[in-house]
């Protein structure tokens, strides 16, 4: 038969690098979606949670009798009703062997440790009836003193968990002198105190809330041989493992499905009390159950992010050459150590030195338990905190030396010809070109023109001052080489799995262990496979997010899907080609050694004989005429464990106008030139960059989870937790330089977190840059107009946020104005 030519390589554009429109979109733009909350099963019951209003209290009694009598209520259950059947929420990363880790019951029966913790669950035939009955559950509490302020908690003034005897969970240290990767930082600092420059600052990484748009939802169906859990999660595979490990159900009896998932940003990288409770209730009652959180519940009980105090000491010579960096962090874990938990600041430990050639480096983080919502990964996880600190410090150093912020950076950064470069934190950066990205970004911004305008506004004393903020960031992403994770005591590896199934009809089913929730995997992965196998983009189907379809995987976070999961795809596709080759040779009556594969076609060298891989697939399916001893299948799988992280970098520049009369900030322009290696789909990359930028900008300007002095989350709805809208943001100018990564065959680097990591310091640097002539050297995040105004008035970095919400809803008027729990924010040079 004559070979059909599906995609001759010389005629068809390569898929990689094309701005393909997304396969995912047709369903999403027409409302044909499968969010977990859409799922309805026969006889399904609905859950409502009864949550503690107190941050810390002993539960003295729970009276469920009235609730049990309410209409259509099936059961009202407490932690005591379940006992060990409930399982526990796990911490997968004890960062030190002696880490103090409180037991985390999904529904404690004796004591609550944060406001919002679940103490009882109501099961009813409708969600409304469950909520009605939840109002009838009568819980008596004895309130306990709450550990709320991070610094106070670190001093063990009040204990978050009295039985543990301390709030200090773990102290994790890296020292370049001890590790042999650099000198002793104290020597560098003392020398600089004598004849150099020492910059000492304290920065606050405020508490943030991931605030994915789809509230979390979980459905448990216990009616089949497998218990099925549908969950709005980023991590179906880890979730299945944790359910098996903590609730005693064999892993083989558990199927976890992450259907359409509406955003995560790390916020759905968790195993949650709500999932565990739904699991236990479903098993107990033998009926399908559903729980969907409200936005208020989401904000108070889904994990938060950031929340650090950063004490920083940078040593340099008089000319601005850096000689040492010392980082001492306090990190708020909240009430429990979440799944990654204290690992989040550790992920930043290798990044404070960033792109600069520090000869000495010391990092220490003390993780601390408090009576607040638990914290865990939020977009960037550890690296935004590190990047913020170093990029703010480099601006301070530039000011001290009296040079342009980019000049002091260039003096210290790794030159492009110095790659690969082993840093003082012990990482090997494979590739990069900071000079090129910076030159391009300056050109895009019109750097020199804006500097001139800034000078003119300063000279004329304009009411509106202009600032230019710089961030020359790098990050480590692609979590992660399993051996590295093992050396850091992480509880799992960092590989990813893929399989490729060649269907008889010429279609290709690709199964990935990465679980997308908006990233566009179906499109980008199709492009990779289409190129590798030489099949049409449209003929590739990506399957994911169901442990029965994609049984192996480690899910999606840490900018790993493409650089780890994508590489697994490549390896699986290559195996398909290897398996197809002897069959093709047999069918073409040629020697396998004479075959070459290109553009989806096996050809016999030196002849016009050939056949497409789809034809080989059909012949393999029929299996009528295969070589002796060859199995009738081309399907292949691969598990890829990366050898190293990869290190995207870029230069971000922000021009900000500051109304010095009101403190109002107006972003004038934001440009960035990122180096993320080879790009699979520029359209998807642009979306990742834009969205990342706004999340980082939002930390700088708007978002903060604020608690009052009773431990109540004041910013507990979208009225007070301020997400920016289209009207608050601008259009961005983005571009790329390309230094392909050397740690994977596609030459790609992660992009999912880059925008968020880079943008926060660029924005704050811009605000401070505008006001530096007025004596302002720091403004605490978020840079509210009030803080900016106060800083201009000479009141330091603007102070802590007053802990009260606007009482817009009538009965909300009872909330009085309350003082912020003792945070002193006068540290830092702005004081």
């Amino acid at each position, binding site marked *: 038969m004559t070979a059909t030519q599906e995609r001759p390589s010389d005629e068809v554009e390569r898929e990689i690098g094309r701005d393909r429109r997304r396969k995912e979109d047709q369903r999403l733009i027409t409302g044909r979606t499968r969010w977990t909350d859409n799922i309805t099963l026969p006889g399904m019951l609905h859950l409502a949670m009864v949550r503690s209003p107190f941050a810390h209290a002993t539960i003295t009694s729970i009276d469920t009798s009235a609730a049990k009598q309410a209409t259509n209520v099936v059961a009202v259950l407490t932690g005591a009703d379940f006992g060990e059947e409930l399982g526990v929420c796990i911490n997968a990363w004890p960062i030190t062997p002696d880490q103090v880790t409180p037991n985390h019951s999904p529904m404690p029966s004796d004591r609550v440790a944060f406001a919002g913790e679940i103490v009882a669950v109501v099961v009813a035939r409708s969600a409304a009836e469950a909520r009605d009955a939840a109002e009838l559950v009568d819980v008596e509490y004895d309130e306990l003193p709450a550990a709320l302020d991070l610094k106070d908690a670190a001093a063990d003034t009040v204990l978050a968990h009295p039985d543990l005897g301390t709030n200090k969970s773990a102290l994790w240290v890296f020292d370049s002198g001890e590790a042999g990767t650099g000198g002793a930082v104290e020597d560098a600092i003392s020398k600089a105190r004598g004849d150099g420059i020492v910059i000492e600052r304290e920065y606050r990484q405020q508490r943030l809330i991931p605030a994915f*748009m789809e509230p979390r939802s979980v459905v448990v169906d216990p009616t089949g041989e497998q218990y099925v859990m549908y969950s709005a999660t980023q991590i179906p595979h880890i979730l299945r493992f944790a359910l098996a490990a903590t609730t005693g159900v064999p892993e083989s009896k558990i199927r976890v499905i992450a259907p359409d998932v509406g955003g995560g940003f790390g916020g759905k990288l968790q195993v949650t009390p709500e999932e565990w409770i739904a699991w236990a209730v479903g098993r107990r009652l033998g009926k399908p159950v559903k729980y969907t959180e409200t936005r208020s519940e989401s904000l108070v009980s889904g994990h938060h992010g950031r929340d650090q105090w950063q004490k920083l000491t940078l040593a340099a010579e008089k000319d601005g050459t850096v000689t040492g960096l010392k980082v001492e962090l306090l990190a708020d874990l909240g009430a429990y150590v979440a799944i990654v938990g204290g690992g989040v600041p550790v992920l930043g430990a290798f990044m404070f030195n960033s792109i600069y050639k520090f000869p000495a480096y010391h990092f220490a983080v003390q993780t601390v338990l408090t009576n607040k919502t638990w914290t865990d990964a939020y977009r960037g996880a550890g690296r935004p905190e590190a990047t913020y600190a170093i990029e703010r410090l480099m601006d301070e150093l530039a000011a001290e030396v009296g040079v342009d912020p980019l000049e002091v950076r260039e003096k210290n950064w790794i030159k492009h010809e110095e790659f690969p470069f082993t840093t003082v934190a012990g990482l090997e950066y494979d590739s990069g070109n900071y000079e090129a990205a910076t030159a391009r970004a300056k050109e895009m911004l019109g750097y020199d023109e804006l500097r001139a305008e800034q000078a003119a506004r300063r000279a004329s004393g304009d009411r509106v001052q202009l600032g230019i903020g710089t961030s020359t960031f790098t990050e480590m992403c692609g979590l992660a080489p399993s051996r590295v994770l093992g050396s850091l005591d992480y509880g799992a590896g960092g590989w990813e799995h893929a399989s490729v199934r060649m269907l008889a009809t010429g279609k290709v089913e690709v199964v990935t262990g990465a679980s997308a929730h908006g990233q566009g995997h179906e499109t980008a992965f199709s492009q990779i496979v289409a190129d590798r196998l030489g099949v049409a983009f449209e003929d590739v189907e990506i399957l994911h997010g169901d442990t029965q379809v994609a049984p192996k995987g480690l899910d999606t976070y840490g900018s790993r899907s493409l650089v780890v999961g994508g590489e697994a795809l490549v390896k699986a596709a290559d195996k398909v080609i290897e398996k197809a080759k002897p069959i093709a040779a047999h069918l073409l009556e040629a020697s396998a050694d004479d075959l070459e594969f290109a553009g989806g076609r096996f050809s016999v060298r030196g002849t016009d004989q050939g056949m497409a891989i789809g034809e080989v697939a059909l012949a393999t399916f029929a299996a009528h005429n295969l070589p002796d001893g060859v199995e009738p299948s081309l399907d292949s799988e691969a598990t890829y464990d990366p050898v190293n992280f990869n290190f995207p970098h870029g230069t971000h520049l922000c021009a900000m106008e500051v109304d010095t009369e009101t403190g109002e900030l107006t972003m004038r322009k934001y440009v960035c030139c990122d180096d993320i290696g080879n790009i699979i789909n520029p359209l998807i990359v642009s979306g990742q960059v834009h969205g990342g930028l706004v999340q980082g900008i939002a930390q700088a300007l708007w978002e903060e989870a604020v608690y009052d002095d009773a431990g109540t989350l004041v910013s507990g709805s979208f009225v007070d937790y301020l997400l920016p809208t289209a009207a608050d943001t601008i259009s961005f100018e983005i571009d790329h330089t390309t230094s392909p990564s050397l740690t994977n065959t596609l030459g790609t680097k992660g992009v999912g977190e880059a925008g968020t990591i880079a943008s926060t310091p660029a924005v704050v640097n811009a605000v401070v840059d505008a006001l530096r002539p007025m004596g302002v050297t720091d403004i605490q995040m978020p840079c509210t107009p009030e803080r900016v105004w106060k800083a201009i008035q000479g009141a330091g970095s603007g102070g802590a946020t007053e802990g009260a919400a606007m009482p817009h809803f009538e009965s909300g008027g009872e909330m009085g104005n309350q003082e912020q729990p003792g945070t002193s924010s006068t540290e830092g040079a702005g004081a």
Partner: protein
Amino acid sequence: MTRISLTVDGARVSDDVEPRMLLVQYLRERLGKTGTVIGCDTSNCGACTVHLNGSSVKSCNVLAVQADGGEVTTIEGLAQDGQLHPVQEAFRECHGLQCGYCTPGMIMQSVDLLNTNPNPSEQEIRVGLEGNLCRCTGYHNIVKAVQHAAGQGATS
């Protein structure tokens, strides 16, 4: 229970509902119109935006009984005869969505915006979408999509 009758995406429907039932619940739970979603409880996010009698409303902030006798269009009724609405097409063309959760509301509000102002400036688009939150896109490509739909030459 209160009897309501209305037209949803062109179909006449009639049901007994509790007065407390929100329009969005009615659409999702009674009619299976799960394309319209709920993102918050304070009417900030706009994910539940539909058209009621020709104007955009947040369907979590309308009681089903208040919509009695009305005409509702959801994201599922926007395409006509299998033909995507130009705004739907533009969102795909300009990559104006990622996770897609805010998208139904964002598209419905964009359609309303263009009905009122067929040739909006970038700033008018941004202000016109102030009642809809998106966490993925940074709004950049959403704005482009609306410009594209308005025929302002944004071809990305």
